[in-house]
Structures are given as C-alpha cells and as structure tokens.
C-alpha cells in the first residue's frame, strides 16, 4: 500500500465534518490534499469554482458565476433548479486575504445577511478548510433548517403519492 492509498484508507470515515456549533453557527471542516494557494484559487476563480461547487448527485445546473473577488466586490451565482425555475445567490466580499482567509455575505434571504468565513490552513502540503456560517439570529438558522427539511419530507411524500397513483392505474 503506498502512502497515498494508506492516507485515503485511514481518512475515508467522516472526512468532512459538519456541526451546529451554536444557535447561530454552522461549521464544516475538511482537509484537502494540496497547498493553500491552489485551494484558495479554486474558491476564487469562477472557472474553477463552477467545476466543483455543484456535486454530481445534485440535479441542478450552475448557469452563471460572476465573482469580483476583492473587499467590497460582489458575487452572483445563478442556478437552474428545475426546467422552469432559476435561483440566484449573491452577496459581497468582506475580507480577501490570499491564501488564508475569505469572508463574504449571503444576501439572498429575507432576513439579514448570513456571513460565511472560510479559512485555509496549510500543513505539510495539505490544507485544512473551515467553512463557518454565522446566521443573523437563532430563528434565521432554525427556519433555514426547517424549511428545507420539511420540503424534503413533503417532496418525498408527493412522489410516493404519484407512485401509488401509477400503481393503481396499472392494476
């Protein structure tokens, strides 16, 4: 077993962690095999970002990705979520310190902005990533969680309804 596969074998369990660390905070962590300056580039170059931001298992398309990465600069990502709906995510960069720290606001919600801080901490060629979301209030985070979890349930049950109708029609 070479060094690389040994590392992969020991780290497959929970390589990515995610926790609600307080009433208003969510924290995601992961160590990426590569130096911080390249990881930072992948977060700040729109052509690179659009290659990894949407996981393959998620049936949405990133239509456009505009990023003016400097303090006070804005970004705007537009996604096609289904054939008739697009969704825009946008905000402003508050701090840009290559290759170690990136802070921006998410202003698409109804409430005050969510502030996202990403830190890039390099150690022996690997980069520890910490993505920290700070919500304006406990309620804002609660309702972000509730709306999506409920939507998931509802969607699943609607599909079940359709399936039952089909089965009934078929019999």
């Amino acid at each position: 077993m070479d060094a690389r596969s040994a590392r992969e074998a020991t780290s497959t369990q929970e390589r990515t962690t995610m926790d609600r660390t307080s009433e208003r905070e969510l924290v995601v962590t992961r160590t990426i095999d590569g130096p911080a300056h390249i990881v930072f580039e992948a977060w700040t170059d729109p052509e690179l970002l659009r290659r990894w931001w949407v996981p393959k298992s998620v049936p949405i398309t990133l239509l456009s990705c505009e990023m003016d990465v400097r303090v006070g600069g804005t970004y705007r990502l537009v996604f096609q979520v289904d054939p008739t709906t697009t969704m825009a995510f946008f905000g402003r960069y508050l701090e840009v310190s290559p290759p170690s720290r990136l802070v921006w606001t998410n202003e698409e919600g109804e409430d005050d902005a969510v502030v996202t801080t990403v830190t890039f901490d390099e150690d022996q060629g690997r980069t520890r990533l910490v993505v920290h979301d700070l919500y304006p209030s406990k309620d804002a985070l609660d309702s972000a969680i509730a709306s999506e979890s409920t939507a998931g349930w509802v969607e699943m049950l609607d599909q079940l309804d359709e399936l039952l109708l089909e089965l009934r029609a078929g019999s």
Partner: protein
Amino acid sequence: MVQYSDARLDASFAALSDATRRGVLERLGRADASITDLAEAFHLTLTGMRKHVGVLEQADLVTTRKVGRVRTCTLGPRRLEDETAWIERQRRLWDERFDELERIVGERRRKEQIDGRTKRA
C-alpha cells in the same frame, strides 16, 4: 420504547397521509401562520382547518399557541430530529463537493509542477 416510537411513527404517517396537511407543513416551514390564514390559503372552513391542525398537533409536527383571539401555528418539536437529518444531508453534500475540489486542486498542482520544471529548463 420501540412501541412508543412505532406509535409515534404511525401518528406521523397518518398525519402526513393527507395532501392538505403536507401543504400546511410546507407553508409553516416558510413562516408561522394563524388558523385563519391557513384556512384561507387552502380554501377550507375554519373548522376544517382546525381538524387538520389538530391531527398535525397530535403527531408533534405542529404546535399552536393562542394570543388574544388568534391561534398561531408553528412547526412542532419533531423539527429536532429533522435538524440532525438536515445536517447529515448537508454534510454529505459538502463531502461530495470537497472530493471534486480535491480532484481539481490535484490537477492544478500537477500543472504547476510541470510549468515550474519547464521554466527552470
């Protein structure tokens, strides 16, 4: 314990077996609402909506509180279980995203090494 959670699951599924009640949950996921708001939104009588909300309340999916003459409905304590599931779903999403990021970082690093060698040559 098993029986207790089975009973709870039965109550949940019974409550969720109705499209109107699922619609009510979806709506309450966006914002709290009064029985009157919900009755109007779903074109039901107040009595009809009260019954639906009653079933959701029995299953802990909704809680209500009365302020003055208005009864306001909120998503219930079952949210807590949802939170764990939601965080796990998000974690998997990030995990998949980071796998792809790692692949791209590896690609760039190899390119940088090759470019570095070419420049030195």
